[in-house]
């Protein structure tokens, strides 16, 4: 299963289906408090060279989902179910030894915090060459040249000198570039970028995102871009999945999502995007309340307690993911935003002076 391919050799597999098919994947953690349903039935597909944005608040299971797909979670106390097919091959229950042929060469990952995700006591050049030498059987000098080349391509000045430096000698943005170089070294077909810019300041964020874009296009690589900021994926993802409390609540091609978002949670996220056009002190609507406990999630729609559209049925019956006006646009809501039912529900709540199902129960 371990493939020996060069960095420039991509997209030659004969399998014609989608690159990645994720079907009803659930990942639960056994903890002393009980079973944490961090990911609870997620499905999507990812085509070659495309970008899927996964958006949601902190703690909704984005990282667990990416790690689960890559099979990076430690086996102990983790219950995984569902099917993950990569290039048509089932990897949902693959052991670490079986995943070894996929990690690095087929799928790779960029982490949130460049401060902690690079080995502090290993030269950055070595961190790149080690996977080249391990996977691709290349000579030392070739690996070194490739490392320098990679660093140059991710925009690191003086790469020949920088290869022999340690991570602490790089700034945050530069480290994120290094990490990208490390992740790209063996030419993966899918890159998981888990909040690659959250730890960076705003001006650098855009640079890194553009770099990701550029590398992705050059390499015809698919990408799963994880973020809690709808703004980050707005211009970059082909498709966006909105996650809430371990489930996808809405999924649509990017344009469709922004033009006709259906789920109240998506709407709430949208309202919380910082808009550069507005004066910096303008009011941002943050979403009131907190996500539910994943050990004992509430019945019905998990967002109901914070939802301005919520009606009694929302706390009783879980809404299924159903297709909206456009093909490939699905949302799980009894009273979708912008529909007649949704408007009525919102008006009813406004009239009654309640903001969410929660407050109705309470008072």
């Amino acid at each position, binding site marked *: 299963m371990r493939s020996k391919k060069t960095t420039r050799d991509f997209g030659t597999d004969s399998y014609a289906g989608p690159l990645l098919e994720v079907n009803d994947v659930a990942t639960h953690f056994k903890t002393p408090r009980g079973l944490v349903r961090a990911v609870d039935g997620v499905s999507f597909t990812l085509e070659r060279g495309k970008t899927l944005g996964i958006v949601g608040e*902190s703690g909704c299971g984005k*990282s*667990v989902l990416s*790690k689960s797909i890559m099979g990076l979670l430690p086996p102990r106390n983790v219950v995984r179910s569902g099917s993950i097919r990569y290039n048509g091959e089932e990897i949902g229950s693959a052991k670490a030894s079986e995943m070894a042929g996929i990690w690095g060469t087929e799928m790779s990952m960029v982490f*949130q915090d460049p401060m902690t995700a690079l080995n502090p006591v290993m030269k950055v050049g070595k961190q790149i060459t080690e996977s080249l030498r391990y996977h691709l059987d290349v000579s030392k000098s070739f690996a070194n040249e490739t490392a320098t080349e990679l660093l140059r391509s991710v925009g690191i000045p003086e790469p020949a000198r920088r290869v022999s430096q340690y991570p602490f000698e790089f700034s945050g943005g530069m480290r994120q570039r290094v990490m990208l170089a490390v992740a790209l070294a063996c030419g993966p077909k899918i890159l998981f970028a888990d909040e690659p810019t959250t730890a960076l300041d705003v001006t650098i964020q855009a640079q890194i995102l553009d770099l990701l874009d550029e590398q992705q296009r050059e390499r015809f690589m698919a990408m799963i871009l994880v973020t809690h900021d709808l703004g980050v994926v707005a211009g970059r993802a082909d498709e966006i999945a909105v996650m809430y409390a371990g489930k996808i609540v809405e999924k649509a091609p990017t344009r469709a999502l922004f033009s006709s978002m259906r789920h109240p949670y998506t709407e709430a996220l949208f309202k919380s995007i910082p808009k550069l056009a507005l004066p910096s002190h303008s009011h941002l609507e943050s979403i009131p309340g907190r996500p539910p406990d994943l050990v004992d999630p509430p019945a019905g729609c998990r967002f109901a307690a914070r939802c301005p559209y919520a009606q009694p049925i929302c706390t009783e019956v879980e809404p299924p993911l159903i297709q909206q006006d456009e093909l490939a646009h699905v949302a799980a809501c009894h009273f979708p935003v912008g529909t007649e039912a949704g408007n009525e529900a919102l008006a009813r709540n406004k009239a009654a002076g309640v903001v969410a199902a929660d407050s109705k129960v309470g008072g």
Partner: protein
Amino acid sequence: MADKVKVEKAATKKLGIAGVLSLAWMTFVSLVAFLAPWLPFDDYATSHLEALKVGPFIAPGFPLGGDQRGVDMVDKLVWGIRNSMMVALGAIALGFLLGGTAGLIAGYFKGKVDTVITGAMSMLLAIPQLVLAIALVAVLASPYIGSDGMNQFPSNGRKMIVLIFALGVVTAPVVGRITRANTLVWSQRDFVLAAKAQGAKNFRIIFREVLPNVAPAMFSIALLGIAVIMVAEAGISFAGAGLPADVPSLGNIIVGGQSLLLLGTPHIVFEPVIVIFLTVTSLNFLGDIVRARFDVREAAV
């Protein structure tokens, strides 16, 4: 990152079987040590011919056998435990008196006082502790030629006091360092600063606010310290600087039994070794439990 798991959440919150056993053993040993004079044990000088070099469970009435002079090992061990415990407790008390005080003062007042005290402690720590203790005992409690030209032998009492003193002195800097580190942390806490702001006297603050909080750490160190000192006492006995043979200690019983061990009669050596092992294990275990319970960080600074 949020998705990191705490692999080891202190599983030692409760005593557990090992904890109970440790506590039981320490209670037993302490009772034996303190009550020895009032318990029906023979003098450790009484020889019994029928117990001469006899192994355990052989001669009736001598469950642990007898030593090379026919002394009942039970008697010998009882007095050995008592003397070793006296040395260990005395030394740890001295070590805490010196080191604890120094550590509290250094950690609380900081600045120059701290520099001087910390410096003094590093000096003491610059000689391996066992070697330092051996040297101290050797020079302080050795026979010497008096002004009358006669050999003067230090009394057994003096020897024990010197031993306690030496072990206490080498314990002090270790205790001092840990106390200082903990004091540094606690004396930065709001309630201490508040007490200071209200004009409370320094010594009052040290005793009322800082000491009670540093105490758990010191307690767990004391438990480990007793264990270390008991082992050190044996080490000093090996070096020929320990208590004299007519004052049995766990250490000198072992040293005395060594030649018989080579001849194939091991119980004189192994019985005190087992006592030391069980005691050290128990103290280590209880120390860990105390540390886990109070979440003591040793190198707090």
